[in-house]
Structures are given as structure tokens and as C-alpha cells.
């Protein structure tokens, strides 16, 4: 028996909606098996079936060759199946150890035995090189560390097969490469991994085989080394996907945004933007490349008026907009796709239609003399939802919460672009979205550029910055340390710049190959 887990012909239905239909996934011992599919393709449903949260209507599950019925997550645990969820299941103000033992606390004479548990946690941490402090509080450690706690949690419970649900969604690039190392170490120790993702690059990098599902249907399983990202994308989406976004040469004209000697502090009053200079002209996309935490958030918040500027100026179309109120800045011609769409972009409990009107609800023709004509909001929402292909269950009255991430993001983009702003700020506009939605959003950004607007793109994904931007400004420690042409740079060079290396000091030598 070479398969440790087999899911054969699984079917799961919710009412009349078929979430999984005849899906087969076979996990070999010691492999990293990727499960690939768009948002809403049925990946999570399938894994919830494996984890005992849902019961399948048809098909069977075998563990180590034996047919099993997984009636609840405890059964899954006993069978050696562990899951690292996308949204961590951790108690913020508990320590690492307390979280790990939660639900199966070891006791000594009726008292919880934290000490021995902590030792065990430490041993596991060392074995797999996880570097986790058993006594650290969850709220004090980084997202990447929290994920490792989730990994230890499964190991502590004796998991042999670990499911990773979109593990890189909220990680920084370094954390991602560290996670990949951890996965490889787990495999070396004889564990098997199912990796749920829609990021093709990760699949190519770590997985041995890939099972693709599309719209609930099992498309098949391929060996990673025998496939290409293009082929995988086609399998996943069902059509050809353009990775290299097509665009004409930029034709920049007059200066739209000018940021001079900008200094901004964060909530602790520590300077995060330290004398930054930036200029964007109409008809160009400037990408800001940088590692998270180098002042990107503070820069956007300062431009959009959400955070007070300590010194320096921000001008839009030669008009000083420094420290104006957010609404005044918006009205002077700035559109902003915020980096956290749930926190800033949407009122999740409002219908999506209200959210689409969130920047215009107070203006004519929607509002007259303080009274809102809600039929006008519906009109606007329907128009934008059609134009931007925003799909929802019940049209514009669907609560924003009920839309998928991609559709939420399309609604926000529709809202911002429809106002026809001179400057469009897009902060991590494709975070957590699948290739289809990413392609759509990139095209919209380029469309704005071609209409003669200025676009500021902030992203942690290097290929996005390189693909979409006409110029790349590298931010490091609160300053733009260099500006490069995406056609003339490499990921390696950008990586070095983002880490604070000076290009000019060693550029020549590197090209010569000595140094």
C-alpha cells in the first residue's frame, strides 16, 4: 500500500449546489501533494470532508489502505490527520504551549501539567527547526510564528498527514521561504502533506504532484516535474491565462502626484516614513516594491489623509493636499484600493450595493437635501457590478460579507475607478485572489493608465510589481532608495535593493562578474 490517504470519487452537495463531484485525491507517503483550484472550486469542502466536518454523499476515504468513516475531527486526529487552517485557531492571550494542549490538557494529579507539555513542544520545535518559544504569548508573536504553532499543534497530536490550507496567504516573502523549508523538513521526517493553494509558483517549487479541481469537478492529478505553470493554470481555470500582462509602452505626461521629504510616524510615534520623495506622472504605473513594514502602509495613509503627516508635502496636480481630511483628498481626485479590504475597504454588514456607494452616497444624484434615494444606489451598484463582473447571490442587496474575496475586491475597484480619479492607489490589490481575478484586476489598472491616469501600486509580490509597473520604486526603511525599470531589472536585483543593498555601489562590478 503506497497511499497513506485516498479519497475516491467524493461527492458533497449542499442543497442543490454540488460542491464536490467525483473528486479523487491520493496522497503518497512522504510527498507534498498540492490541491489546486480557484477560489470557490471546492478545495476547502474536500478537505473538510477529509477532516470529518462534512459527510460525503458518495465516495470513500481510505487511510493506509483501510476504508474509514470520518465522522468528526477527533476521528481525523486519531487517524493521524492534522490541519493547519488558513485562519489560525489560536487563543490570543494564551501561551504557545497552552494553545497546543488546548482540548487535551495533560494533567498531573488533576492539575494541568504545563511544564512537561512545554518540554515536548520545545523538543518538537527543535526536531523540525521551528524555533518556537513554548512560553511566548500568541499575541506577541508574528503571523509566521503563529502558523508554526499550528504546525506543532498537529505534530503534538501525532499527525502523520498534515493539511495546509492556503498557508502562504498572510505571510511575507521571507516567511514563505521559511515555511517551504519547514515543509521539506517534515517530509524528510516521514510526514506527508496536502497543500491547498492557488499560487502556481509555490506548487512548482515544493510539490511532488498536483490534483486540480475546477468548479467542484476533479480534473485530474499531474506530476509537478512534468508540467508547467501555464498548463496548471489552464487546468485550473479552464482556459488560457495570460501571466505576462499585455500592455503598450507607457506614455507619461504631466506630474500628478508629488511627495516631497515626507515624514510620517506610526501609532507609537516612531518614524516610519523618513524623508520620502516620489513623483508619479499621468499615464504611468509606479510600483512600490519593498518588504512589509518599510513604511508602505504609513505612506499610503499619509497620501490619503488617514494619517497625519509630520513634515513634508504631498501635492496632487500641483495642489497641496498635505493633511487634508480624507474626504477632501478623495474629492480632489484620489481613488484608493486599501490593502485590508475587510478593515478599510468594506462595511461587511452592509449590502454590497451600499458599499459600492460608500464614497458617493452623500453626493448628487444619490443624496438631495440630506435624504438618500436608495433606488439611485441600486442603479449605481447594478451598473458597477455588471461592468466589473461582481458576482453575488442576490445582486446588490447581498451582504458584502457573503461575497468571495475576488468579488469583494472587484466591487471596491469598481467603486474607486468609477469616480474617475486622477490618481489611483492600489495597495495589495490582488492579495488572496486567484489567477483569473488577478488577471482582471491587472488589466483594469493598466486601463486606467492608458486613460491617462496615474497609478500607484503597492505590492509585496515581486512578479506583480515587475509585471504591471512602468517604473519600480524600491522602498526601504521609509525611503525610496532607488527607482528601476522593470524591463531592465531582475528579481535578484530587486531582492537585494529591498534588503537595503545599494545598487549603484556594486552595480558595475556585478555586471563584470568579479566582486
Amino acid at each position, binding site marked *: 500500500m503506497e497511499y497513506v490517504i485516498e479519497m475516491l470519487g467524493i461527492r458533497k452537495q449542499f442543497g442543490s449546489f454540488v460542491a464536490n463531484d467525483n473528486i479523487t485525491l491520493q496522497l503518497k507517503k512522504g510527498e507534498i501533494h498540492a490541491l489546486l483550484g480557484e477560489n470557490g472550486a471546492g478545495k476547502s469542502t474536500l478537505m473538510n470532508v477529509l477532516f470529518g466536518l462534512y459527510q460525503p454523499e458518495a465516495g470513500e476515504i481510505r487511510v493506509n489502505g483501510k476504508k474509514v468513516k470520518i465522522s468528526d475531527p477527533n476521528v481525523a486526529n486519531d487517524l493521524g490527520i492534522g490541519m493547519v487552517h488558513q485562519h489560525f485557531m489560536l487563543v490570543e492571550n494564551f501561551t504557545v504551549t497552552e494553545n497546543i494542549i488546548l482540548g487535551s490538557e495533560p494533567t498531573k494529579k488533576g492539575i494541568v501539567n504545563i511544564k512537561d507539555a512545554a518540554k515536548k513542544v520545545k523538543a518538537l520545535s527543535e526536531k523540525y527547526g521551528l524555533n518556537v518559544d513554548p512560553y511566548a504569548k500568541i499575541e506577541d508573536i508574528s503571523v509566521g510564528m503563529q502558523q508554526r504553532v499550528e504546525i506543532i499543534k498537529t505534530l503534538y497530536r501525532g499527525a502523520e498527514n498534515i493539511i495546509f490550507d492556503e498557508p502562504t496567504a498572510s505571510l511575507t516573502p521571507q516567511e514563505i521561504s521559511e515555511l517551504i523549508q519547514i515543509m521539506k523538513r517534515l517530509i524528510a521526517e516521514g510526514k506527508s502533506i496536502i497543500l491547498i493553494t492557488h499560487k502556481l509558483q509555490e506548487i512548482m517549487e515544493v510539490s511532488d504532484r498536483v490534483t486540480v479541481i475546477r468548479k467542484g469537478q476533479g480534473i485530474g492529478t499531474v506530476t509537478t516535474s512534468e508540467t508547467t505553470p501555464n498548463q496548471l493554470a489552464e487546468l485550473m481555470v479552464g482556459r488560457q491565462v495570460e501571466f505576462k500582462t499585455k500592455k503598450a509602452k507607457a506614455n507619461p505626461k504631466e506630474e500628478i502626484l508629488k511627495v516631497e521629504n515626507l515624514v510620517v510616524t506610526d501609532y507609537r510615534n516612531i518614524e516610519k516614513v523618513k524623508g520620502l520623495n516620489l513623483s508619479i506622472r499621468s499615464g504611468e504605473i509606479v510600483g512600490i516594491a519593498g518588504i512589509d513594514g518599510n513604511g508602505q502602509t504609513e505612506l499610503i495613509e499619509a497620501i490619503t489623509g488617514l494619517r497625519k503627516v509630520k513634515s513634508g508635502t504631498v501635492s496632487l496636480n500641483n495642489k497641496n493636499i498635505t493633511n487634508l481630511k*480624507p474626504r477632501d483628498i478623495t474629492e480632489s481626485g484620489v481613488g484608493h484600493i486599501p490593502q485590508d479590504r475587510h478593515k478599510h475597504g468594506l*462595511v461587511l454588514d452592509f449590502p454590497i450595493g451600499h458599499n459600492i456607494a460608500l464614497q458617493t452616497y452623500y453626493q448628487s444624484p444619490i*443624496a438631495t437635501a440630506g435624504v438618500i434615494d436608495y433606488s439611485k444606489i441600486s442603479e449605481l451598484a447594478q451598473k458597477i457590478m455588471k461592468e466589473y463582473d461582481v458576482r453575488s447571490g442576490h445582486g446588490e442587496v447581498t451582504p458584502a460579507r457573503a461575497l468571495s474575496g475576488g468579488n469583494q475586491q472587484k466591487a471596491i475597484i469598481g467603486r474607486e475607478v468609477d469616480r474617475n480619479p486622477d490618481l489611483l492607489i492600489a495597495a495589495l490589490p490582488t492579495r488572496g485572489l486567484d489567477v483569473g481575478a488577478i488577471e482582471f484586476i491587472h488589466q483594469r489598472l493598466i486601463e486606467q493608465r492608458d486613460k491617462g491616469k496615474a497609478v500607484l501600486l503597492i505590492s509585496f509580490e515581486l512578479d506583480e510589481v515587475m509585471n504591471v509597473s512602468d517604473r519600480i520604486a524600491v522602498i526601504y526603511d521609509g525611503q525610496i532608495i532607488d527607482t528601476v525599470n522593470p524591463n531592465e531589472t531582475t528579481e535578484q536585483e530587486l531582492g537585494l535593493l529591498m534588503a537595503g543593498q545599494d545598487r549603484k555601489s556594486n552595480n558595475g562590478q556585478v555586471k563584470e562578474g568579479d566582486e
Partner: protein
Amino acid sequence: MSNKLTNILVPVISVILGLLVGAIVMLVSGYDPVQGYIALWEGIFGDMFTIGGTIRQITPYILAGLAVAFAFRTGLFNIGVEGQLIMGWLAAAYVGYAFELPAIIHLPLAILAAALAGALWAFIPGLLKAKLQVHEVIVTIMMNYIALHVANAVIQSISDSGEKTPMIHESASLRSTFLDTLTDYSRMHYGIVIALIMVVIMWFILEKTKRGFELKAVGFNQNASEYAGMNVKSNIILAMVISGAFAGLAGAMEALGTFGNITVQAGFTGIGFDGIAVALLGANAPFGVLLGAILFGALKFGSLNMPNVGIPVEIVSIIIALVIFFVASGYIIRVLLERLSKKKEAK
């Protein structure tokens, strides 16, 4: 089962269940539930006097419920309705007796004074919340005690007897000879009209105005509201102020309608706290609050008749609580109904 049918069935079944369990309580305690419920019914709808009394009881509940519901809808928990109501009561009673004006000015002035007093009392926690992030629950609870004792002190200092303020002038009164004759001197007053208008006003503010849109948005998500250019702080303060004004009006009902003055209070009136239950019963929607207040007020007033058939007030309180408990836990009934209809489908 269709959604509409469930929506009607759930509250009906809830009330029936509450009454059933209440009947069991009466049986176990050795009282006749049939007699008890007949007494309750007659206490609510028995004659013009009880109908008038029921409506009078419902009136302040509507306004207190609106006050709580308005705050809830804008993301705030106003437990201070009680205190705001007392301040409104005091203000209305004072304006009612201290001035001599034609009714057309006097009555609106007294009502306005009550609304302003309630609004002012709610402004303080609103300001503290907006500027210093002090939690409104703590501040409003404390403001209740301050209101109670400040009002008592004021009453003692301005009244001759030291116990109650002088009666308001006729020109500030909501009572009328017409209503008195119609309802057999039940103390019913025109306040119900004001309360009904306020139901519509709350609906209009929340569902129709630009400001209502902002208040709700800020209540749901301050970050997104700020991002969209709304002034979060002023919206928080305004939400509290409007909520407080509703509460103040509830006080005006007592001052200008039911009592005609304000007496030194040994403890809270309870209307403000019951307002929380009314708001929740009504799902924080203006017309829901109206229904919640009707249920609450009718039971409260009607049950006064139950001791007449020998059922002690304590048992009566338990029965009222049971009915409201079941209505509030309508979710349980909803789930049960869904299961039942599912089973039928399966068959």
C-alpha cells in the same frame, strides 16, 4: 416552509409556549391558570379603562425601546436610557410648572426640554467614547446613578414639601378631558401620538437620510467609515445624542402625561432597562420596537389584574418573564420549525 410563514409563526408560537410554561408554573403553585389568564386578558382589553391604561403603559416603552435600538443600530450600547429618561422627566416637569405660556408654545417647549435633557445626558458618554475611547457601557451605567440622585436633589430643593415638584400647568399637559372621558379616567394621554411619530422618525433617519447611512456605517466599521471620509467621532457623539433624546422623550411622557410631576425616587423606574428588552424583542428595528413595546406594556399592565383572582405578584412576574424569554429565544423555535419541515421533505 416559506420564509414569510416562519416569520409570523415564530413569535406566535413563542408567546403560546411562554403562556404554556407560565400555566405550568401557576398549576404547580396551586393556582388556576385559566382564571389567571382570563384576568390577564381582562387586565389588557377588559374595558375602556384597561385599554387606556395599557396604551399609557406602552407609550414610554416605545420611546425607551427606540432609544436603545437606535444606539444598537449605530454600534453603541446605551444602558443609560434610564438616567436620560429621569433627566427628561425632570426637565419636562420643571418647564411644565415653572412657566406660564399658551399651550401651543408651552407643551412643545416642555417636550423639547425633555429631549434636550436626555440628549445632553447622553452627550457626555458619547463625547468620552469619541475622544478618549472610554467604553459607553461603563459611563452610561454610572450616569444613571448620577441622574437618579441629581434629580432627587433638585426635586427636594425646588419643591415645598421636599418630595415632589408642583403639578404642571394645564398648558403643558398631554392629558385631555376627551381621553379621560373616553377611557374612564385611565390616565391615558396623547403621548402615544408622539411615540408613534418617533417610530417613523427613527425609521426615516436610519433608512432614508444621509446621516443615517453614516451612523450605521460608523456603527458597523469605524475604519471603513473613516476611509470613506466620514467623521467617525462626530457620528458617535450624534448617535448617543439622538438615542438620549428618545430617552428624554420617554421621561416627558411620565412628566406631562401620566404623573404631571416628578417625585423623589427611591430607585430606578425600570423603564430604561426594560427598553433594552423591548429593543431586542423588536430586533432593533423601529416597527419591531413598537411591537415589542406593545407586548411588554400590555403584559406589564394587564398582569396588574391577576392578583385580583388571588395570584401573587411574584408569580405574575415569573409568567411575564417567561413569555418574554420565549419570544426572545425565537431562534430556538425557528430551528425547530426548520427541522420539522426538513423531516417532512425527507419523507
